[in-house]
């Protein structure tokens, strides 16, 4: 139980990078990048977790209740925005490449082919 979050993060990262390396369709590759990103979310959130604590919202609670680390949650929020925007950019690039080259197979897309 102690190691589960870290093992999960490492596994997700490994699976994602395997997918990126062997992908035959760029949209699939972008999905694999998202999987790798999830690994970082899990790693970050697990660092800030504490057993027996509540979420860092003190609306109906006293602020001396033990709560998890809000800094890491803010970092993950930033991370999610990063992921969403880069995914949008990648998908737009893929769309245009498909129009220009007719394929979205990473193996067949090489800039400046001689």
């Amino acid at each position, binding site marked *: 139980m102690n190691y589960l979050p870290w093992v999960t993060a490492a596994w997700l990262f490994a699976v994602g990078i395997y997918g*990126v390396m062997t*992908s035959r369709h760029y949209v699939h590759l972008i999905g694999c990048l998202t999987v790798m990103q999830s690994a970082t979310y899990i790693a970050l959130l697990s660092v800030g977790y504490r057993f027996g604590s509540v979420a860092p919202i003190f609306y109906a609670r006293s602020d001396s209740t033990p709560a998890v680390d809000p800094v890491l949650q803010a970092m993950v929020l930033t991370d999610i925005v990063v992921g969403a925007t*880069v995914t949008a950019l990648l998908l737009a*690039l893929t769309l245009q490449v498909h129009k220009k080259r007719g394929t979205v197979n990473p193996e067949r*897309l*090489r*800039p*400046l*082919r001689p």
Partner: protein
Amino acid sequence: MIDPAAATLAPLPVAVPLLAGALLLLVGKFLPGRLADALATSAALLTLVIDARLAAQTGQGPLVYWMGHWQPQGGLTLGIALVIGQAQAMLGAFMALLFAASFVFAWGYFEDIRAFFHVLMLILLGALQGFCLTHDLFNLFVWFEVMSVAAFALTAYRLEADPLEGALNFTVTNSIGSFLILGGIALAYSLGNALDFGALAGTLAHRGATDPVAVAAFCMIAIGLLIKGAALPFHFWLADAHAVAPSPVSVIFSGAMVPLALFGLGKIYWDLFEPVPAVQLLMRTLFLALGITTTVIGGLACLRQRHLKRLLAFSTVSHGGILLIGIALSGPVALGGVLLYFIGHGLVKGALFMVAGILLASAGGVDELWLRGRGRPVWPAGILMTLAGVMLGGAPFGLMDSGSRLIGAAAAGRPEKWILMAMVLGTACTGGAVLRGAGRIFLGLGAMAGEEARGPTDEESEKPDRPLWLMMLPTAVLLVAAVGVGMPHADAMVLHAAARFLAWDRSASVGPVGPPLTVGAPQSAHPFMPWLTLALTVLIAAHDLGRSRWPKTWLRATDRVLCSSWFTAIDRTHDGVVGDYVLWILLGTALFSVSSAVALYAG
């Protein structure tokens, strides 16, 4: 003491370009004519002035600025600090100058999509300034991401097939780098529970001595930064991205973005991880070896290119290797060399990309063999290209030469001859390739059989009807700055800035700093080095330019070397397939793992 008025300038190098970018996004559609160009150039110049003022004010002590006035409370740093020393302010000023020159060069280039180019470039400038000045680990990552995203969008700006593919390779590889940096931040936070460099450094010094988590955190962050900094084996994306990005954008990539990632690596090392013995060992061995290999292979690959911008991209890889050598050597002399080399190389490389842009606009192509002789109508650009090639190739004047002399002097006592040989070889190859290009394009020398066969990207051109003088002006300004006109004491000033950075930067945010240090300029042990490099440069250029004049035996011997399978293998590995690039990243990570294990259990 820091003038309080100057202290309020601290957040402005970041805020001014970002505000200008947001304003241009709002009103860009309604602005007449070239007003957007003028606004963008003014914003860059204003940033330059602010950074220069900050550099002047921080000679006696760094400026520590807490965002939101969140001073440390109870021994904990709660907010984000900017720590501005002379070194960072100088780099920031240089980058703003490069952007201003790039905006002038791009005047009238981008007409169709209402000021989007300027918005993206201004956001990129703000991010580079933030990356340079910040003192917080996660903030460093945020600005790293901002500069990455702006760069991804700018690479694909031309919307042809090749820029799109180049941008895809760029985005995928650099995104993997960002994920690694985030993982490293998670590990570092789990150890130190702080994100400010000063606060984190204390904990890492205590606990990091035998902790693999600290070493792993450093390695992950370092790999992410090395991917952006285009060091072997993470450099493959650079050639693809540079070759297809518009010229004003390539100026910034090679001149500012890639070297700044390497400087960021140095900052992480000196501010956070230097007290960890295993990391110090890694830096002295692995990173030095990587720097040497990058320099040599980048230079050799540069020689084989006929696409001008790809050639310049590989030369950036090679010179980035020299920067990495300087960072790995550490110490005030090496850091002073790194700063000078950063600025000198950026100016020269920026000017060269502008020359490539001039050729694209006037002659309509960027393939060196196709352009043979077609540069004659724009012969002033040829003079600038030759001057730049000579400086790139190790001429004994200018900022680049001062930088490499300092790095060479810092190599004393290390495996010095490997470092010096690598620097000579890399510099000579890149300078020789540029001189060869200049000779071919502007003088029509160096005819080769089969040159009519078109090279890659035959259908390339940039907007042709910009006035030549407007494009030559920023090029000339950059080269004049690179020669070091008007900066007689640049060496001494930079050395002092470097020494103070190393002494003050780490703990500036958590405690008082000591008195200002001075460092004497070391004597060069090898004063003939620049001449040797220059001679080799001219030899390499002349080899291809005067093929018909060389004796047959010489040609046979050199061809046996240059066409051997090793050299063609260099070309074949840069094949443009993103899966292979990711595999190389994985191979590099494996190399780091094994080296870290050895460093931990040997140290």
